[in-house]
């Protein structure tokens, strides 16, 4: 009724606009939205760019660690020659001389003349005499038979083979001289030098500081594995139990508030502090063995616990309280409500948190430096290693750190190769986290 009496002067008619024309406000809003999307895409692109740069540089620097240059020479050593060599004062020198002779002969057969220069051969192939002597002392029945003897070349030759080292960029040193490359070229022409996959890098143990070619990461993978086992077996039950108690049972008071604040703070404590703590408590006070995966695992457990507790509590909190009410209202005890209903719903979050905590622990180096799991050259590997939580060992990141700190540039590519292995493990763990999450997630 009153509509009809509206005065057109005091009550202006509403402005009519066409839907086919975007007005200024909408245009501005759309532009802002487009800009925001563009920023997002830029950010992602930058991220991907750096990821690719990182991946490429890691792979380029690390791949050579997985190949190894070997020289194979066929020869026969007779019993007489063996006895003669054993009779010498410098026995390994005699073996070296014998080997060098065989090498020169092999090249000669292919029509290549090289001067027999014991020093040059040693720079290329290392101390061949010792290797040869060890072989024949271990396998005396090979005497008098023709053997195809494979020797790994030095890391410089390795570098020359895969292009890291060229005639232009090399400097003469006690490790390799330019003239030595002529011998290597001759070996290449003769076809007795080749690159093979370096299984030793994956399965072997660390070598001495002057032998980058023989260094492997296998022992420290085993060490890391034992540590992760300790971390998983301790931090998962302790962390989950603590979170359930704090979240579902503990009364809300000053004391639990204090605990809560402390846990959050612990998550931010630098890992080296945990290392010092481990050194003081586990090694000096409790007299647990040094350099042992058990101690490393204990220290990393301390570090991982806050992460697990925080993520577990967050996922427990995310379970709607109505589920707890439903269970309690039916006469379930608190524990039944938690274990039958709340925990299964929180499981994906707990698992993800745990695996991320483990992955962090796997990549942690600093605390291991303090409990002596670093700079450790394995002797007698693999005996004793597989057996133990308490045998001295290293861990992957600590091993990488050791290699990166060594003077010989041959260790440089080993460090990168170690990083590739470490990243493969981390990637596997993260994929596992995603799969478990999917597996346990209830979409209903």
């Amino acid at each position, binding site marked *: 009724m009153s509509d009809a009496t509206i005065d057109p002067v005091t009550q202006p008619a509403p402005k009519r606009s066409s839907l086919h024309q975007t007005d200024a406000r909408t245009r501005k809003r759309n532009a802002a939205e487009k800009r925001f999307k563009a920023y997002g895409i830029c950010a992602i692109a930058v991220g991907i760019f750096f990821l690719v740069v990182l991946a490429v540089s890691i792979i380029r620097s690390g791949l050579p660690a997985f190949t190894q240059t070997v020289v194979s020479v066929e020869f026969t050593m007779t019993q007489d020659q063996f006895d003669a060599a054993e009779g010498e004062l410098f026995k390994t020198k005699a073996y070296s001389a014998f080997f060098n002779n065989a090498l020169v002969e092999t090249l000669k057969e292919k029509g290549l003349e090289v001067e027999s220069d014991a020093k040059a051969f040693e720079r290329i192939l290392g101390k061949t005499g010792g290797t040869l002597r060890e072989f024949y002392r271990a396998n005396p029945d090979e005497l008098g038979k023709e053997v195809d003897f494979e020797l790994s070349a030095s890391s410089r030759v390795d570098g020359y083979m895969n292009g890291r080292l060229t005639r232009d960029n090399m400097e003469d040193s006690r490790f390799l001289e330019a003239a030595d490359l002529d011998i290597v070229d001759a070996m290449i022409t003769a076809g007795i030098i080749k690159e093979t996959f370096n299984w030793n890098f994956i399965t072997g143990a660390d070598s001495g500081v002057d032998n980058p070619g023989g260094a492997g990461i296998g022992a420290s993978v085993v060490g890391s594995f034992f540590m992760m086992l300790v971390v998983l077996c301790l931090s998962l039950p302790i962390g989950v139990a603590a979170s359930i108690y704090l979240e579902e049972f503990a009364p809300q008071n000053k004391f639990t508030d204090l605990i809560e604040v402390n846990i959050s703070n612990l998550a931010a404590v630098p890992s080296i502090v945990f290392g010092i703590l481990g050194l003081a408590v586990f090694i000096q006070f409790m007299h647990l063995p040094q350099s042992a995966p058990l101690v490393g695992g204990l220290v990393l457990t301390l570090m991982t616990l806050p992460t697990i507790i925080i993520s577990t509590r967050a996922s427990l909190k995310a379970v709607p309280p109505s589920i707890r009410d439903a269970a309690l*209202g039916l*006469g379930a005890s608190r524990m039944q409500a938690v274990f039958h209903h709340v925990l299964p719903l929180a499981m994906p979050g707990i698992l993800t948190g745990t695996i991320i905590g483990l992955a962090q622990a796997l990549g942690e180096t600093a605390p291991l430096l303090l409990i002596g799991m670093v700079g450790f050259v394995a002797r007698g590997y693999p005996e004793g290693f597989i057996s133990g939580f308490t045998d001295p060992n290293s861990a992957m990141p600590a091993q990488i750190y050791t290699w990166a700190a060594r003077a010989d540039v041959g260790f440089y590519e080993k460090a990168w190769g170690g990083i590739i292995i470490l990243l493969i493990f981390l990637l596997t763990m993260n994929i596992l986290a995603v799969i478990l999450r999917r597996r346990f997630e209830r979409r209903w």
Partner: protein
Amino acid sequence: MYDAPKLETALDQQDIKISADKVQVYYGETHAIKDVSVEIEDKTVTAFIGPSGCGKSTFLRTLNRMNDTIDICRVQGNILLDGEDIYHAKVDPVQLRAKVGMVFQKPNPFPKSIYDNIAYGPRIHGLANSKADLDVIVEKSLRRGAIWDEVKDRLHAPGTGLSGGQQQRLCIARAVATEPEVLLMDEPCSALDPIATAQVEELIDELRKNYSVVIVTHSMQQAARVSQKTAFFHLGNLVEYDDTSKIFTNPSDERTESYITGRIG
């Protein structure tokens, strides 16, 4: 035909199931329930009405000690179930809640199958000795929840996949599966459409044969339709408690009258 059972109910109605005496509830400093005394009868539907925040839910939750889960909540006074003090130190609230079931405002089925939703209570209370027993209980409860026909073909489908009204009836079926003696319902129809509401109301009337039902409701019509007794709460006080017909036709307190005629609340 109808006379005999009616007489029986009339006789049963004399029994007092729950008797609350001078109950006070505090949330920290807030005095949420002030000096409430009420006697809830067996095999009767009792409605709690009152404006929002007057303490209906709070009082309902004191009847099965669900308030124990709230740290800051304190309850004083006596509440007797069949003459036994439910706040006595010897009483395990878990045992009490098996006797006094509860249906919540928002349907809250477990994210499990329909079958497991119903079977959960009987399982933890050991009501079934075999799988066959359990099957019988599940079917009986779903029938009493007036939802059997809708779900009998998909007992192993998730309970959360049902519609809101079906979920609420599932929750009621779940509550009756544990064979409680008292059923507390906190605004069970507030999230439901009129058809589902009518189904739930029918169900409540059905349940009255076996249980004492206490229902909190926002709707005066609902209270008038389903209940025999009505309690009107206002600002934490129990203003009036009487036969439903009396409350709605001839209330003795003027606050009750204002509320049911729509002047407060």
